[in-house]
Structures are given as C-alpha cells and as structure tokens.
C-alpha cells in the first residue's frame, strides 16, 4: 500500500550562536526520526517542550527544511524547496486559535485563501468549496459564517475555521500542532472528534502533536513518544498507553494527573528530576532513568520490536517489560 507520508531518518540541526565571539553550539532538534503513515490514519507524537516534536511538524509542512534524511508526501519526495504540489498536499492546524487566523480577514477569505493562492476554480467555485469546507468542519450552515470576522467567534469556532482552511485543498497530510491545548475543556472533545472523523472518513493522514498524553487516545491510531530529538517508543496508541515499555513513557504517563481523588498519584522516581545531561554515545535518557545500568552510558539504543507493531528504544526493554 502506498503511504500518505513517509519520513526516513529525518534530521534537523540548528546552530545557536550564543556568544559574541567564537562558534555557536549545535542543537540536534530532530536526530534521526523515521515513520510512515497510511492514508486515513493518525500518528500522535507526544513529548515535552524541547523534545523536537514541533520541529518535526515544521519539517513536515515545509516551514523548515531538513538537514538530513528524506520526507515524502504521497510518494513524492520533498526536494530542495517545497514546490506548489507539495504545498497543496500538506496543511497545518495551529495551537493558538487567536493568532492563527488573520483578524482582518472574513471567515470566507481565510478558508478560501489556499484556493486563491493555487488559482483553483472560479470565484463562485471557490466560494462553494469554502462553504463546503466550513460545513465539513461543523460550522453549519457554512454560508452563514462566510462574512463573519474572527473576533465574532469563540475559540472553538476559530479552531474550526482553521480546520476548514486546512482541509479545503484536500491535502494528503494534516499536521495538527496542539490543536486543543488553548481551548476550554468543555469544547476540546468536539474538536478532537472532528479531526478524528475527518481523517478516518477520507484518504488524508494526520500527525497529531501534543504534550498531553490523556487526549491522544481519542484521536490517534498510533503513538510515538519523543525524547531529545528521537522516538523512544512507537506503537498502537492503546498499547503504548496501557502497556508502556520505555521508562520515559512510563514516567510521562504516571505524571498525568488523574481526575479521581480516591486514587493516590503514582510517585515518580527521584532520578527523573535530578538527572543531568546525557553522555555522548549513550542512551540520552540514561541520566534520568531509574532502570539504567552501566551499559546504558555506552550504547545508544535504536528502536527495536517489543510487540506487534510496537517498538522501543531501550536496551533493557525485555527485562523491564510489564
């Protein structure tokens, strides 16, 4: 089966010039990440700030260019520079529903803009497609929203406008970067369900970037956990959430507050907090890992199968598996 997206050993380094004189330090924001997503499927990428998940999002949509590896959408590799075809095939939904829509555009202008940029259809056809996209994003009737301005809309409605803009070109890949983290709790489920439905009813694939592991189950098919530029665990979402193998995944899951006061929170290992910087050539999580042994300082683990479609980058995964 042809994949909607395939990423092979993607790398992105930044040179942070911090001193006035002398060279800067090189930051490996993404350090060898590979995955594929089939049409109509969702990959969740979870991690803390600085894990590189946002850089992956920017690479996938062509906002930044990889310093190594290959990214292909619909079988066509992204060349030196994203061309019009690539631009049409990937779209993004952003975290902040207030900043992601031009305050001086009407909803119709915003949703119709990608069509205008790619000179698709007559004005009447563009209008009709924008209305259809709004309908699909559950802003119904779409026609009634076309002439409204963002300040007249709630956060949830703005995020739906952003989603309509993202799907109006019928992209092969949608990248959603923390799309509900700035919305009120009471409207999050609606947006998540909308994204889930849009992907599963179409040929579009989605990458769902989040720091919040508790919401991934309602949108994602697969989950990848990222730590310092690498995937440390990758598998079917419920598998990873209910049978996490990597010590970092376990810590992340244990740290999520449980909305049940009768359940005592799982204590986190002290080493998780106190650990320092990783040693070159070793596992990057080893300094914070309570399961680390001497070998972890010398072997840089790669993803290995740990179950059906489930892989883990930990040399001790067999011993520590639940």
């Amino acid at each position, binding site marked *: 089966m042809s994949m909607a997206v395939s990423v092979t050993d993607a790398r992105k380094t930044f040179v942070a010039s911090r001193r006035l004189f002398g060279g800067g330090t090189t930051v490996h924001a993404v350090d060898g990440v590979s995955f594929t997503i089939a049409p109509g499927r969702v990959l969740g990428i979870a991690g803390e700030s600085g894990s590189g998940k946002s850089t992956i999002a920017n690479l996938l*949509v*062509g*906002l930044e260019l990889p310093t190594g590896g290959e990214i292909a959408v619909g079988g066509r590799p992204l060349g030196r520079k*994203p061309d*019009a075809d690539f*631009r*049409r095939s*990937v*779209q*993004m939904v*952003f*975290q*902040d529903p207030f*900043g*992601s*829509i*031009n*305050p*001086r*555009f009407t909803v119709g202008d*915003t949703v119709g*803009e*990608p069509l205008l*940029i*790619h000179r698709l259809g007559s004005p009447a056809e563009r209008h009709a497609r924008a209305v259809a996209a709004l309908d699909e994003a559950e802003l119904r009737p779409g026609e009634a929203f076309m002439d409204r301005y963002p300040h007249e809309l709630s956060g949830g409605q703005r995020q739906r406008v*952003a989603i309509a*803009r*993202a799907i109006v*070109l019928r992209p092969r890949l949608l990248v959603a970067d923390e799309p509900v983290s700035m919305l009120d709790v009471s409207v999050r489920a609606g947006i998540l369900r909308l994204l889930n439905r849009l992907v599963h009813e179409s040929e579009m694939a989605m990458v769902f970037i989040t720091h919040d592991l508790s919401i991934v189950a309602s949108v994602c098919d697969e989950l990848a956990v990222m730590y310092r530029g690498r995937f440390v665990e990758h598998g079917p979402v419920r598998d990873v959430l209910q049978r996490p193998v990597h010590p970092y995944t376990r810590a992340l899951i244990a740290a999520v507050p449980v909305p049940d006061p009768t359940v005592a929170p799982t204590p986190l290992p002290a080493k998780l907090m106190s650990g320092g910087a990783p040693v070159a050539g070793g596992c990057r999580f080893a300094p914070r890992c309570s399961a680390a042994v001497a070998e972890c300082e010398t072997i840089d683990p790669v993803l290995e199968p740990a179950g059906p479609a489930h892989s883990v980058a930990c040399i001790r995964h067999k011993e520590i598996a639940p």
Partner: protein
Amino acid sequence: MSPFASWSGGFGAIFLSLVVLIAVLAPWLSPYDPLVNNFDAAGQLRRLAPPSAAHLLGTTYYGLDVLSQLIHGTRIVLIVGITCAVLIALIGTNIGLIAGYYGGRVDTVLMRATDLAFGVPFIPFAVVLVALLGPSLWNTIIAISFLMWRSTARVIRSQVLSLRERGFVKAARIAGASDMRILYVHIFPNVLPMALLYVSFDIAWAVLAEASISFLGFGDPHQTSWGQMLYLAYVSGSIRQAWWWTVPPGAALSLFVIAVFLVGREYERLANPRLR
C-alpha cells in the same frame, strides 16, 4: 458613543477641518493677493501697518497683507504635510515590512541604513540639500522625506517581527502564498493602524520642519508659508515691533501641530483597544 471620547480629540479634528476648508477656499477668503504690495491713497507702500479694518491683521514690512498670507499659508501646510506624510509612509513602511519579514542580511542592511538616517542631523542636512538643489517647495519636501522615514521604518519592523511568527502568516506560507502576498495582503493590513498613527505625527513634524527650513531662509521665495513669514519678519528687523506679523503664523503653527497630535492620540485610543 460619540466618535471622540475626549474634548481634545474633537477640538483637534475641528481645527484641522477648518485648516483644510481655508486652504481650499483660500483665493476667495483672502482679502488681498498675498504677494502683491499694498499702497495707501498717497501711493506710499503700507509698511508695517497695524491691524485695521482694511487689513485685519495689519501689513508686513513689504506692504503685504498678513491675513491673506496666513490664509494662503494653509495651502503650503497641507501640501507639505500630506506629501511628506505619504512619502515617509511609503518609504518607512516598506523598509520596515521588508526588513522585518526577510530578516537576516536584508534586515541588517536596511537597519544600518535606518541607523544612518537617525545619525544625520536633520536641519543641517536639509539646509545643505536645499542649498545644492536650489530653494523650492519640492526640494524642501524631498529633504524632509529623505530622512524622516526612519522612525516609521523601525516601528513597523518591530511589529512585523512579531506578526511574522503568528499562525496566520505561517498558515499562508504553508498554503504556498508568495512573499508579496504575505507581506501586502496579510501583514500590511495589520500594521496599517500603526503606520497611520505615524503618518499623523509625520504630518506635524514635516510642517514644523518646513517652517524651520523657511525660517532659516532656505524656503521657496515664491510661496508664502508660515515659516517664511516668520523669516521675513526676522530679516526685516521688525520681529520686535510688528507682533501682528509674527504672532499669527507662530500661533497657527503651534495650534496645527497640537491639533495633529491630539487627533493622532485619539486615533490611537480608538485603534488600540488596550488604551481604552
């Protein structure tokens, strides 16, 4: 809600409308030709006549009617103010947009040019330029516009720096919008309120600058500007005796500048919800 929340903004707006009206109707409003000498019945030049029924604001050393000069001066004020503001806004806004959006070397070069423009002392520069090109209203306008874009450029650039990180700019980039489209369709309308605010202040500064250049004697000798009136009162040595010659243009200039600032401030209050 009245359009002006404060009396000061209303005063500014009324005063400016009055200036525009006077400028348009100047030939019909002014009792005399501002550049034609007046003679009395005996055929003598009416030098420094104090205000009277015939000359409501008296006459100058050269026998010219002060009121007519004052009225025609409003035209110069508007030509200088509006032309300079448009030129400054065009240069400053575009430099700010391009420097802020492209960043990197483009930004460095444009911002060093801006620093340079800040470093040049304005009056000596204008005097030298006008001296080289010859005194005319257009050369004055060019001299003013050539330096005064600097603050607009800086302010617009800083706005663009934050706007270009906003989601809607990224979304347009991802959708494949050209740089031109992002700059002028997405970013420009969002810096427009700030650009307009600076335009209003530029009008005031440009009018003051023209008056300064004229007062120093580098103005257009064929036009009657308020600065020119003050210059002639000074060089003819009558600045101490003929208050009717100096007070009207001085007061008109001050009021004009104050009115522009009041309207600008009011506009800022309306355009920037945080100041409400």
